[in-house]
Every structure is written in C-alpha cells, then in structure tokens.
C-alpha cells in the first residue's frame, strides 16, 4: 500500500491549482463584495496560467507517465495535452465572458469559480485511469455546468435549459455508474490497466470476453454516459435547447470544454482499457453507426435552423460525430498496422488535434455572437447578421475565418483536423468505405449552412426587419480573445504538423508504455 505523498501532489498540480483558485475567487467575492470585477477576471486568468505551467512542463519533458493517487490518476503527456486544450478553452471563455456578465447583470464571483471547477472536473477526467475517477471528474464537471446553464436566473428559457440538462444529465450519470458496476462485475476491476490485463488473459483461460454479455452491457452503458456528455445522436436531444437557453458565454464554454473532456476520458477508456478483439469488434461497430448518425443528423438539421445559437448547437453535434469517427479508428480491432498500434496512435492524435482546433474556432464563432446586439438584445437569428461586413468588416472577417475552420476549408486548422481524421480512417487495415463517404458528404452539407452565415454577413441586402447592421458591444478582453482565436485558427493551419506531431509523440508513448502494450510488463 502506497500513501499519497509529494510526488502525487506535484503530478496533479493542475488539479490543485484549479481547485485552489476556484476557492480563492469564491472567497474574494464573498469577503470583498466591493472588489472590482476586473480583479476577479484577472485572478481567474492567473489561475489558468498557473495551472498551465505544470502541463507545459510535462509536455516538454520526456513524458514518462506518472501514476499517482493509488493508480487512480495518471500524469502523462496525454493528460497535459488535454489539460492545455481545456485551459485554452477556459481562458478564451473568461475573456469573452467579462463584458457579457457585466451587460447581463450576472454575478461574476460564483461564475468564475464554477468555470474553474468545471475545468478541474475536465482535467480529472482526462487524467483518470480508473473508472471511478472518470465518474468523479464527470460529476465535478457536470454539476458545475448544471448551475452555469441556469446562471441567468428568472428567464424561462434559462431555467428550462438548466432543468433539462440536469434531469437528463443525472439520468446519463446513472447509466454511466451502472455501466461501471457491470464492467466491474465482469472483469473484477475498475482500473483500466487491470481491465486490459484481464481481457488479455481471458483467452488463455478459455474465456471469450467478446461473448461476455455482462461486460458488453456495461460497456454499452458507459457509451450512453459518454455519448450524452459529448452530445452524439441519439443522446443529443438536450443539446439545442440547452445551448439556446443557457447564457451564451456558458454555451460557448460548455460546447468546447465538456466535449473535449468527454472525448479525453472516452479515448483513454475505450482505446486503452478494452483491448480485446471480440469486444472491440462490438464497440467499433456501435461507434461507427453512432458516428454516422451523428454526422448525418447534426449537419442535415443544422441546414434548416434560422437561429444562430441553434445552428451552432447542431454544428457542435456534427463535430462530435467527426471526432467519434476518429474514436472508431482507435478502437477498431484491425485498425492498427501491427501490435503497438501505429494507426491507433495516429487516430488518437487526430482526435486530440481536432479537439484543439474545434475549441479555438468554436469559441471564436460564439465570441462574435456575444459581441453583437440588436435593439439592446442579444442577436438570435442568422438574419440578424445582415450587413455586418459593411459596418464591422474586421468582425465579419474573423467570423468568416472561424466558420471556414468549422467547415474544414484550408488554410485553417479545421481543414487539417478533418484531413488527419480522414487519414486515420483511410489508414486502417480494413477501412470502412461507407463511413469515409459519409464523412466527406456530410462535410459538404455543412458548407451550405456555414456559408449561409457568411452570405448573411456579406451579401444579403437589408430587409424591413433588419434595416441596418447589428451594433457592436465589445471590451478589450473580448477583442483579445477574438484576436487570439483568429490567430490560433490560422496558426493551427500553418503549424498543423507541429501540433499534430506533439499529439502523436504523446499518444505513441501511451501505446508503448503508459497505456502499455504489452500488458504484463508493468
């Protein structure tokens, strides 16, 4: 029995810092009620920067995985990469939120604290190598988001969003927990390493895990829980209503951080934990059909959405579908080139790169929505953007850039994100042609609605309903955030190889030692 010590504390420094700064912000807000809101923003950003330092150090280091807290959490390059994705998403959200909170009259103390706690949950999820800690992280993340979704009290849409998200989320958590119980019942462990060892040893003891109904039912329930968090069809019904009803700053934040956190844990549990041919055949078949459905429904329904936030909600569903395609390439049993999974680590890196690009581009698009007003109200419809290019050319240009990235057109990061995913899909030993075709076709469908927004900004004539362009309400924080998002979107296109290479180095280490093929060596 090992007891947590200094080594553990150092390894989970990002978690400590995020939690510590969350409490600091709460106390500052409670004990100095007259403190200027700018200070709270600054302290929150300071916390995010502080938490990024250990993550960056980890990425720069050799990436030797560090298992801590009695094999509950693992500090490795993979954790650090996703930690940085969350922190980038969080920092951009904080910068975008400051003016929004002031304008909407929302209290910022608890808001920033909850934002930090959400990220704490996300980092715990990414670092988890035990199903129970995955659940713990999921709950820290979810409960904070339930509160944030209803943060603008007294609005019917907001209350409905929060209640819907909470009820369905609690239900999904129950599924997830039941799945954990069944997996434990079948394999005798909650640790994904031990589950893998169990599966690897099974054939020699005359057992066939692919036929173990208890195990498969457990995995299916885990899929439901994950599927809800990352919003894939058919677990997506909450998404449009919650995204529309929640404050826009929260929508922007949860659309990137909750999704990235879900995929972080999903990839590790599915990619590293259930390494058995028979089991993977089942998982990958189910995931491939879910991914296909998600891309189809997300993109097709987005086409007919007049509301801008709803359009972005369905587009976020579609993006979850794209990332799920990458997960299929990770778990498909004959996906890898050989033992050691060359293609598997490629596919995993593709999903990680995509999560990073999506974070930057999507937050940028939501940021533009938050900066614009019409008659003192938030803009709601795509048509509300009419005439933006003539009045605010820079903002329209930035929005176009973000939408091009989301649509996956060069030279933006989004293009390379999709390219890497397709590459992983094609690189499998037995590729799924229909999934590749569907991926390409639905991407083409998405051009229609993304470019529809661009058309509204640049080409549409003023109508009676929208005689002039929307007003601008932006502070410097917002300008910085939008500028950083735009630079990031372009930089990830120009420097795609570098970011992808970083992800690849991290995942390769995972499949060799940390995630550990061969199982028995550790």
């Amino acid at each position: 029995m090992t007891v947590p010590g200094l080594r553990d504390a150092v390894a989970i420094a990002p978690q400590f810092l995020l939690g510590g700064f969350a409490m600091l912000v709460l106390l500052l807000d409670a004990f100095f009620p007259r403190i200027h809101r700018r200070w709270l923003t600054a302290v929150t950003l300071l916390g995010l920067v502080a938490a990024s330092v250990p993550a960056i150090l980890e990425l720069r280091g050799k990436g030797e995985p560090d298992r801590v807290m009695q094999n509950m959490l693992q500090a490795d390059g993979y954790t650090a990469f996703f930690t940085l994705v969350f922190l980038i998403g969080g920092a951009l959200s904080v910068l975008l939120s400051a003016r929004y909170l002031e304008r909407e009259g929302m209290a910022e103390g608890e808001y920033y604290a909850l934002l930090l706690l959400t990220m704490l949950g996300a980092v715990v999820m990414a670092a988890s190598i035990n199903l129970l800690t995955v659940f713990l992280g999921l709950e820290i993340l979810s409960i904070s988001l339930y509160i944030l979704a209803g943060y603008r009290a007294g609005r019917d849409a907001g209350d409905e969003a929060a209640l819907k998200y909470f009820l369905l989320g609690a239900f999904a958590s129950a599924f997830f927990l039941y799945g954990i119980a069944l997996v434990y019942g079948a394999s005798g462990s909650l640790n994904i390493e031990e589950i893998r060892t169990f599966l690897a040893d099974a054939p020699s003891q005359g057992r066939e895990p692919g036929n173990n109904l208890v195990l498969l039912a457990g995995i299916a329930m885990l899929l439901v829980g994950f599927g809800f968090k990352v919003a894939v069809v058919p677990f997506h019904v909450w998404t449009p209503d919650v995204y529309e009803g929640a404050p826009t700053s929260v929508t922007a934040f949860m659309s990137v951080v909750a999704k990235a956190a879900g995929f972080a844990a999903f990839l590790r549990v599915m990619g590293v934990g259930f390494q058995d041919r028979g089991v993977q055949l089942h998982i990958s078949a189910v995931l491939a059909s879910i991914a296909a459905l998600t891309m189809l429904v997300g993109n097709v329904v987005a086409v007919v959405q007049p509301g801008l936030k709803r359009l972005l909600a369905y587009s976020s569903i579609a993006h979850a579908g794209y990332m799920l395609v990458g997960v299929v390439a990770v778990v498909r049993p004959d996906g890898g080139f050989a033992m050691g999974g060359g293609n598997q680590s490629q596919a995993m890196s593709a999903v990680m790169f995509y999560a990073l690009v999506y974070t930057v581009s999507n937050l940028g698009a939501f940021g533009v929505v938050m900066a614009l007003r019409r008659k003192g109200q938030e803009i709601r419809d795509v048509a509300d953007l009419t005439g933006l290019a003539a009045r605010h050319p820079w903002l329209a240009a930035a929005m176009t850039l973000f939408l091009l990235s989301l649509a996956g057109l060069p030279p933006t990061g989004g293009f390379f994100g999709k390219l890497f995913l397709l590459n992983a899909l094609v690189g499998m030993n037995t590729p799924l042609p229909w999934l590749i075709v569907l991926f390409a076709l639905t991407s083409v469908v998405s051009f229609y609605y993304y470019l529809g927004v661009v058309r509204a900004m640049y080409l549409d004539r003023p109508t009676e309903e929208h005689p002039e362009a929307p007003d601008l309400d932006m502070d410097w924080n917002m300008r910085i955030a939008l500028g950083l998002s735009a630079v990031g979107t372009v930089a990830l296109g120009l420097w795609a190889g570098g970011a992808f290479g970083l992800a690849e180095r991290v995942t390769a280490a995972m499949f060799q030692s940390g995630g550990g093929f061969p199982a028995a060596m550790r």
Partner: protein
Amino acid sequence: MPPLPDYVPVGIVAIIAVIFSVLVMWLADRLSPRKPKPEKLSTYECGERPEGQAWSQFNVRFYIFALMFVIFDVETVFIFPWAVRLHWFRSMEMGLIIFLEMVIFIAVLLIGLAYAWKKGVLKWV
C-alpha cells in the same frame, strides 16, 4: 459466461427481499384491526393540534439550512473511519500525510462555510 454464477446468490437475496416485504405489508393489511376515530386519522404533530394544510410554501431558507447541516453531517461520517484508522497509519509512519489529507478536506469545507456565512446564508431574516 463464467462471472454470472457469482450473481446467483445476489439474485436470490433480491427475490427473497421483494417477496418478504410485499408479504409483510400484505399481512399487516389483512391482520390489523381497524377502528378509525377523528383523532386517529389526523396528522401526528407531537400532540399538537394540526392547523391548515401541509401543502403550503416553505421558506427556502429551511432548505439552505438543511443543506449546510447535511454537509457537515456527512463530513463527520468521513472523519469517523479516518479517526479510527489513524493509529494504524501512524504505526506505519504515514501518520503525517494522512493527517494532512484530512486537514485539507476540512479546510475545503470550512471555506465553503465561510463563503456561505459571508453571503448571509446563516442569517435568518
């Protein structure tokens, strides 16, 4: 499927539990004498005469107070096994770190209490 037989006893216990509870309720319903009087049918309020309906609005403060109480109630539940086991950890020379872990835990809860206090949760207006 090897693991299933392990669950057979669990299933048997579950079935027995369901049958037993249904049976007891059914028996009580059948065997109990019934002599209703107005006093018997009224709501039990520790001897007080009940007034009005129980379906009225409650002050939300009751809820927040109860929440604060439950938090510290549950804290005790966590501290108890820790306190019982601390001696063993000390004998293994891990006492300090285990002690510090509980200090961190309590500190986090105290920060929550301080926040609630400052926000006026504990004040009955």
